[in-house]
């Protein structure tokens, strides 16, 4: 079982694209901690200075649109951000986030209910999101069964290893 995720919310609007999550000039970096120093730099240059480990990014629709750069979720994770809650995610970002182990949750009610600075706690298994500041509880959309099975298997890498073993026999 994964531990609960807990931290303060940093709230943004819709269409937070990968160019602002990690600007192109940093895409020649592959070290997660180094990438983490520039997370959200194009949108909120003070984010990494202000945030504390465990904090949660909250955003409206279409989070992560644009480029397929996997360094976008890697940068968010590398910054110490514990999760992203959005009304919806762009397709490639969604796959990338799950593949690299950045917890992401879809919940319109959470996004509408949470304000910047609220203290948030997320139970990754159940998808229950608690707003400790406002004493409210929200639910994240369940992962589709296939995604759930990938997550439960430990991500795409163990899944591929199993497929490779099957093919070898």
């Amino acid at each position, binding site marked *: 079982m994964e531990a609960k995720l807990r931290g303060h919310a940093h709230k943004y609007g819709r269409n937070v694209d990968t160019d602002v999550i990690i600007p192109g000039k940093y895409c020649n970096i592959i070290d997660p901690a180094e990438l983490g120093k520039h997370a959200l730099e194009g949108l909120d240059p003070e984010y990494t200075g202000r945030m504390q480990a465990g904090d949660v990014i909250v955003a409206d629709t279409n989070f992560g649109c644009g*480029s397929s750069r996997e360094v976008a979720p890697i940068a968010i994770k590398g910054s110490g951000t514990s999760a992203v809650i959005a009304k*919806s995610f762009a397709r490639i970002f969604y796959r990338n986030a799950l593949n690299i182990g950045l917890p992401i949750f879809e919940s319109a009610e959470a996004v509408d209910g949470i304000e910047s600075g609220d203290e948030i706690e997320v139970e990754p298994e159940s998808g229950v999101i608690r707003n400790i500041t406002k004493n409210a509880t929200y639910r994240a959309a369940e992962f589709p069964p296939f995604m759930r099975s990938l997550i439960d298997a430990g991500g795409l890498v163990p899944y591929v290893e199993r497929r490779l073993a099957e093919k070898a026999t």
Partner: protein
Amino acid sequence: MGMTLTEKILARHCGLERVEPGQIVNATVDLVLANELSAAVAIGVMRGMKGASRVFDPSRIALVADHFVPAKDAQSAMLAKLMKDFAAEQQIEHFFDVGRGGIEHVVLPEEGLVAPGELIVGGDSHTCTYGAFGAFATGMGSTDIAAAFALGEVWLKVPASIKLVYSGKPGPMVYAKDIMLRTVGELGIDGATYRAIEYHGTTVDELSITGRITMANMAIEAGAKNGIFHADEKTIAYVKERTDRPFIVERADADAVYERVISIDIGSLEPQVACPHTPDNVHPISEVTREDLPVDQVFIGSCTNGYIDDLRVVAKILEGKRVASNLRVIVNPGSQKVWMQAADEGILTTLAAAGCAVNTPGCGACFGGHMGTLGDGERAISTTNRNYVGRMGSPKAEIYLASPATCAASAIAGRITDPRVLEYVAS
């Protein structure tokens, strides 16, 4: 009940009679693409996978150095070297280094690596470009690409399809780029998320291959998983000139089910411009030029508009003229072959004589990497595909997206200009 073109290709690649939107399938891939940025991360992931010491098929992987090339700095050089060493170690057949390739999406079709009915995944969001050839092609992140390197398979959710039906003949100075900008404006940047876009209609039947490339390339700008055209005689002739590999031309069934059908008449379409800071903030040029918008940089190039047809349009407009003194013009032919063709036709000399800087092929300027980065307060008009905050450099810069003709006209006038008034501009 019939299947869409995307469903047909996916069904064949997972050995099923039929597939339906929402279904998760495990599909075999015909080609896996990566550039030095996505490859560097993917190679690291693959090295950590038990049982994945070799790629599934060295002839079905294409590696192209194009983002930070020629290397911007030591860090960028290291990523390119990592990919080059991997290519040598794995005996990758299709490895394109600086001077022998160019922008991945320009290079792959040129080299005959894309054919109708194929399934292609790439570590770059503009992999959807190959839909221009009737292939299913989609962009993915590096971990998915590592999985495809190792397995030759990917898992996919079958997307529902949106059918776009274009009618009408484009007016003067209206190009595929204008049609696609209008389309992105209409759909919105998340209007096709998780969907396939299937392009139909008399307008696109008449389009050149490069026009279709421009349109398929920007399917991702509406959030789409892929954008696809039916292959026709033009497509088949283009592909057969470049490869002997057999391929299967798929067609959507007459009774295929589409989530939406949208008709777009372009008979009265003006040149279009995507204004800052999203590619769906699209307006007709006559609206945009109501405001005087002086420009600091004009950029011609990219996987959207870095083709020989695009350079011909620009050269025709700039021939015998000088670009305005208040701006700089940077031109990146999309590939080494495009560069050589443009040299043969005298286009590079025409552009240089007009005051343009002609670069070697690469993605740098388009994504704010290098070789054309914008500074604070600068305004650019560009033939590229994205204008998000900071896309081409400073987050305090403004990017307008337009066709090569609109960019060339703006280069002469020094401000964002309607290419249909070129005679006026010249006088």
